[in-house]
């Protein structure tokens, strides 16, 4: 049985793809190559930084203008909108204005006014794969697209039906099969006074998000879309879900949610679970 492991810098982080199966090493490397192509495609379509990306075209489009998007971008926007409704507005990728204000994202040229529309102001047409803004808004898919990219690579690899082990890890957002006997290591987060440690994989996918930081751990930000500001507490949360896109997005909601009841309802809806360290 052959096995290979590769790591490439993509999506602003390190993307690790590990495979094992009854194939030769060149065949496994070829599968890795094709999996990375899917990650690169997500990066190309959904980058806020790239002024020519599909996402940037949507961001720059006028209110009322219909834009045809790829099935991938459509899927992420559709899930974002669904989650926005299910989380009572706590998940909203239209927080790019605040991130631009904090200089965490580059300011799109030609735009001086920072729009404050929400993802609910986006009209989606599944039949024609079009999106139309009803308000000016800037979308940043940084809180969900990494997980989606992991899913894209993972789904491609598992669809080959010839691999015994598949693992895709984009800087901590990961998905693997089989997962039930696998342990992962959660990196310490000093601001949340979490010393790090091993945990078993509870679902196929896992993602971790942190806020707050110290000199050893760069400060990270999560914007509360309802209050329109960055949250100030220090916390760390890991979510286990059936897809990396869900896990990635749920971490943001877990960091923002006030009561356990609301998050548990959402988690039950998706058969997901979470660990907090704060």
């Amino acid at each position, binding site marked *: 049985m052959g*096995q*290979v*492991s*590769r*790591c*490439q*810098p*993509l999506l*602003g*982080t*390190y993307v*690790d793809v*590990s*495979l*094992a199966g009854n194939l030769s090493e060149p065949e496994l*490397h070829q599968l890795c*190559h094709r999996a990375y192509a899917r990650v690169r495609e997500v990066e190309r379509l959904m980058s806020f930084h790239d002024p020519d990306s599909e996402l940037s075209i949507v961001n720059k489009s006028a209110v009322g203008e219909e834009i045809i998007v790829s099935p991938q971008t459509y899927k992420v926007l559709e899930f974002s909108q669904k989650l926005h409704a299910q989380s009572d507005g706590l998940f909203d990728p239209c927080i790019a204005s605040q991130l631009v204000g904090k200089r965490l994202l580059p300011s799109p040229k030609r735009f001086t006014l920072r729009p404050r529309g929400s993802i609910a102001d986006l009209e989606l047409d599944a039949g024609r794969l079009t999106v139309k803004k009803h308000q000016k808004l800037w979308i940043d898919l940084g809180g969900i697209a*990494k997980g989606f990219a992991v899913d894209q690579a993972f789904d491609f690899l598992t669809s080959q039906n010839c691999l015994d*082990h598949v*693992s895709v*890890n984009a*800087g*901590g*957002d*990961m998905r*693997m099969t089989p997962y039930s006997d*696998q*342990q*992962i*290591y*959660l*990196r*310490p*987060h*000093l601001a949340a006074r979490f*010393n*790090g*440690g*091993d945990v078993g994989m509870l679902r196929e996918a*896992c*993602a*971790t*998000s*942190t806020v707050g*930081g110290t000199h*050893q*751990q*760069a400060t*990270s930000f999560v914007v509360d879309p309802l209050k329109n500001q960055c949250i100030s507490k220090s916390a*760390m949360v*890991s979510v286990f879900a059936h897809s990396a896109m869900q896990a990635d997005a749920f971490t943001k909601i877990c960091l923002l949610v006030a009561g356990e009841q609301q998050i548990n309802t959402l988690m039950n809806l998706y058969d997901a679970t979470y660990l907090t360290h704060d």
Partner: protein
Amino acid sequence: MMNRRNLLKTSLFTAGAWVTCQNTSYAKTYLTSEQARKLIFPGKSFKKVQVTLTKAQMKAIKSASRVRVHHSNLNAYKAADGSWFIIDQVYGKHEFIDFAIGIEPSGKVKAIEVLTYRESYGHQVRHPKWRAQLVGKTVTDPVKVDKDVKNISGATLSAVHLADGTRRLLNTWQLVLSSHK
């Protein structure tokens, strides 16, 4: 001024910290340089080229890339068609990351592959499970999928240093390698 006792204390602490870092370094080797070269440029033969940057060249590369150039010697290989394959290092979260870059004759990046990823947890020395999985590991150990070193989750790692390293090498190509005979 530091007296002798304090100096000794400091030295011991520094040595201890160094040993601690050694004990708690995570290292995952993905590819050898030879494997990376074959994956980036299949079927193409390369020759090792001795490239030593002059101080003026290092300064010019730093100025163009806005990244400091630490080493004057390049670990570089050239193909007959003008493709370059370079092995280099950048500083990652706490440790160096070895990587390979393939540059096409036009100066475009063909691919980047991480060869060895290292991360250290100086404050993790008391975590026995973490230490246990690192005992006996060297950077040359073969990768065993998820049985060797565990997947790590946490605050998303930034690959900004690798992006800086790439920009430095692309400027090195522009200013030095593209005109290499």
